[in-house]
Each structure stands twice: as C-alpha cells, then as structure tokens.
C-alpha cells in the first residue's frame, strides 16, 4: 500500500513537474501562430524525453553515476569541458527564465511590478534548496504544479470541435502567410522545450539523491512513462487553448498574462486563480531544478561532493555554485531583459545542444561494465539511434534557421 502510494506520488510529481516556463511560452506562442500544426513535435519531444530520462534514471540507479559523471567519463576531460560550458550556460539561462517566470506569475496576482519580486523569488529559491528536504521539495512543487490541469479542464468545458483539433494536429499544414523555415524553427523550439537537458541532469541526480536501488527501477519506468506523457498533455492543452482563442484574433502572446486568457474566458475567476497557482508552482519548481542542476553539472564534472543527501557543510562547493548561479540568474533578470525573451533563447539553444547530453547517456546505457544485465534492450537502442540522428539534424539546423528566420519573425 505504502509502495503504491509512493509510486502514485512519483507519477503525479512527474506530471506537475514536466511543464516549465519554456513549455508554457513555446506551446502558447506556437498555438497562437500555427494552430495545432506543430502538436506532433510535442509528441516527438515527449517520447524522446521519456526514452532518455528512463535511460539516465536506470544508469543512475544501477551504477550510482548521474548524467554529468557519464559525460566526463565517456567524452574525456577536454570534450566534456566544452560540453559542460555549453550545458551550464543553457541551464543557467533557463534558471534565469524560471526566476523571471515566477516573478511574472506573482505580478499577475498582485499587480506589483515583477522586478520587485525577483530578489524575493531568488532568495526563496535558494532557501528551499538550502533547507527543504529533497523529497518534500520535489513532491510539493510537483503536486502544486498539477494545478495546470485547469487549462485542460477549461478546454474540456468549452467542448471544442475535438475532431477538428485532432485533424489539424494529424494533418500538419503550414498556415498561409507563414514560411516553412519559420514553421520549422518553432518546431525546433518546441522540441528544445520538451527535451531541455536539465531535465535529465535533475532526474538522474535525483535518483542518486533519493538513494534509488534496483528495486526502484519500476518506479523509474512508471514515473517516466506515465508522468511525462500526461505532463505533455498539459502542454498540448495550452497549445490548443491558444489555437482556439488567440490564433483567430491574431494575438501573439508575449506575456504570461495572455497565456491565461483562454482559461479565464471559459472558467472565470476561479480558473484564473488556479492557473496562476499552476504557473507559480511550475516555474518555481523548475527554478529549483535548474538551480540544483547548475550545481550538479559542475560538481559532477570535477568530482566534488554534491547533493542534498549530505549536510550543506559537507558539499560546500556545490552549494556555493548553486548560490552564485541563483544570484547571477536574478541579476540577469534585473537588467530588465524580458524573461519571455530569455526563455525563447534558452529553449532554442537547448535544442542545439541536445546531442551533447543524450549521446553519452545512450552509450553508457549499453556498457555492461556499468549496467550489468540492465543494458538497453534492442527496442530502446533502435529508438535511441533514431533520436540520436534526429537530434543531430536538429542541432545542425538550429542556428542557421535562427539566422534565416530572424529568430522566427
């Protein structure tokens, strides 16, 4: 019974924890501009993150080695350092975006300028990482993030033409007046948002934090295979809301407030309140994950003690990196750069960097030295190879597309 409860809790946490500021922005903007024609990318992204998060979780559970250990181990000191610089920079940008996202969510509820909230949010993020137990932290924000379900409820209450939405999603057509490069560029941004590398840094390090053993491999599978796809459905609900309400009116959401419009127009004040709670929890939870991931990646490259499973005084360099990252992230947002803009850059750069993270995971998941009998199955390897190829193509195409389309304009 207790075990069942813990598995259910893990799944719910994975659902609520899946969506972050990148998913919110990317899905709403895409829906408002391209309708459901890029919904398939969300599916591709969710399958990809499931595949690699499961692998990373399995490797961490069996060998005790988290993702950046593997990066260093398989790519060697030099290549891994280049990888570290790129991955850290992207994770840091995402952290800044999440801190800004939390501040924007509070701004919507209070009408007090978000910049005033940034220092407070940054302090709270640090405090939670410093003081709150790992399991409590993860579950609390994951569960609270489930409030985003209200976007799906609104959609269901509205009772749209489901067949039409499904048809638009399964028969993707580039809308009139939009170029193919722009369409593909938004697709890449969606993929970057769904497969952001920090998710596996955090997920694999979390398996070590929580001391998973082989008995937890089933939990690993269920969290990933059930939790993440349901989280992906929340992303699609945001996209569909934007498709139905914003696209016909020519609204291109550049603010979090506009993303909330479809939900409140259907469900009113209560729906708005719940959605704002969801925005807050999803971005705050992701700020915790990215803040920790900044520390995880550097500490795992250099072999420092990391993690919340020891006293902070026993992982001083890890906590110092986390603290400095949060301070710098808050500093970046305080320059008054639009957090939504930071988010857009972070997801596009994520897309370009995906192979750096996922290739070493795929290799080590095949090494019996690490994995014993838990190496990848043939099916996992076949899928993994297809994705590796896809991610390489995306990585090569991202920057030229960004220049060609002037970042999607």
């Amino acid at each position, binding site marked *: 019974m207790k075990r069942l409860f813990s598995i259910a809790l893990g799944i719910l946490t994975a659902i609520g924890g899946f969506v972050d500021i990148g998913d919110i922005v990317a899905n709403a*903007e895409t829906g408002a501009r391209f309708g459901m024609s890029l919904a398939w990318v969300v599916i591709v992204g969710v399958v990809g993150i499931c595949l690699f998060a499961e692998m990373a979780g399995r490797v961490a559970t069996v060998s005790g080695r988290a993702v950046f250990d593997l990066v260093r181990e398989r790519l060697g000191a030099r290549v891994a350092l280049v990888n570290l610089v790129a991955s850290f920079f992207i994770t840091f940008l995402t952290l800044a975006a999440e801190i800004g996202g939390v501040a924007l969510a509070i*701004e*919507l*509820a*209070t*009408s007090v300028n978000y910049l005033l909230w940034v220092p407070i949010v940054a302090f709270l993020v640090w405090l939670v990482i410093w003081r709150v137990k790992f399991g409590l932290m993860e579950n609390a924000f994951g569960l609270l993030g489930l409030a985003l379900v209200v976007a799906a409820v609104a959609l269901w209450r509205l009772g749209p033409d489901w067949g039409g939405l499904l048809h638009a999603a399964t028969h993707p057509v580039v809308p009139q*007046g939009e170029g193919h490069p722009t369409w593909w*560029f*938004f697709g890449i*941004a969606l993929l970057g948002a769904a497969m952001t590398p920090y998710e596996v840094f955090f997920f694999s390090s979390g398996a070590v934090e929580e001391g998973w053993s082989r008995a937890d491999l089933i939990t690993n599978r269920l969290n990933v295979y059930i939790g993440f796809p349901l989280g992906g459905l929340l992303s699609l609900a945001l996209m569909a809301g934007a498709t139905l*309400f914003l696209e016909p*009116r*020519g*609204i*291109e*959401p*550049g*603010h979090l*407030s*506009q993303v*909330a*419009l479809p939900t*409140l*127009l259907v469900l*009113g*004040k209560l729906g*708005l*309140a719940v959605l*704002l709670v969801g925005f807050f929890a999803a971005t705050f939870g992701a700020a915790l994950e990215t803040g920790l991931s900044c520390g995880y990646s550097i500490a795992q490259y250099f072999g420092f003690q990391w993690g919340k499973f020891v006293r902070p005084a026993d992982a001083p360099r890890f906590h110092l990196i986390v603290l400095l990252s949060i301070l710098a992230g808050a500093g970046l947002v305080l320059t008054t750069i*639009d957090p*939504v*803009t930071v988010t*857009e850059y972070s997801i*596009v750069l994520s897309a370009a960097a995906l192979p750096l993270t996922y290739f070493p995971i795929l290799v080590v998941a095949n090494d019996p030295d690490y994995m014993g009998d838990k190496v990848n199955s043939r099916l996992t390897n076949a899928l993994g190879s297809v994705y590796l190829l896809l991610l390489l193509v995306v990585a090569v195409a991202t920057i030229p597309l960004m220049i060609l389309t*002037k*970042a*999607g*304009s």
Partner: protein
Amino acid sequence: MRRSWVVAVVLLAGACTGPVRSSSVYESKAGQTAEVVASAVQTALLAVDAAEHDQAYGRYLTQVLVEAEEDAGSAQGVFDGIQPPDDRADELRSHLDDLLTEATGALTELRIAARRGRFAELPELARPLPEVGRRLGDFAEAHG
C-alpha cells in the same frame, strides 16, 4: 520568436542605420508594426470582455491592459523613429500613424480606467477598438 521584440530589434537596427534601403522594406516594417498593435488591441478586447462578464480579477485585468498599452506604444515609437525613404512611404506612414494613434489612445484610456478600478467603464471606452483592430489587421494583411 515573439514578433514584438524581434520587430523592435529589427526596427531599432533600421533606425540606427538611418534611411531604410527601399520602400518595400519600409512597407514590410509598417505591416509588422500594424500586426503587433493589432495583437495588443485584440488582447485588450478579450480583457474587456472578461471584465464585462466578471470573469477575472481587477489586478490581472489591469496588468493585461498595461502590457497591451506598452506593447502598442513601444511598437509605434520604434516605427516613428524610422526614416521613410520616399513619398510613397510618407503616405503609408501617415495612414498607419492615424490608426496607431487611435489604437494607442484607446488603450491608454483603458489603462487609466483600470488603474482607477473603474472596470464598469471599460466596455464603453473600448468601443472604438474593434474597428481599429480590424483596420490594423487589414493593413497588416495588405502590407505584410
């Protein structure tokens, strides 16, 4: 990605380098500006609709209207800073400027009323917006 800031960046770059190379570039910038402002107008209309049916909190509505006014105002400001290359561009500019001024004027009225908590007045103040929004949309379509 989001058009407003990209437009702002692109337009600013244009403004810094002096006259835009050709009138067709100027025209497409005019179209993009109309599109951004049309988006702000439509957003404000949804917010007014929500206010009318008591679907949202005052603080949230105020925020939406403040952002809509800012988006429209900054797009207009950047566009006004671009040097029109020829007579044809002058004509385009004066036509669009009328629309932009009407839109930002109404958006400002909405913001002022919302800040004062007079949400009941919003529908009345928003009355010119659907028409302006439609014309901005048409302009963007014609000059996109």
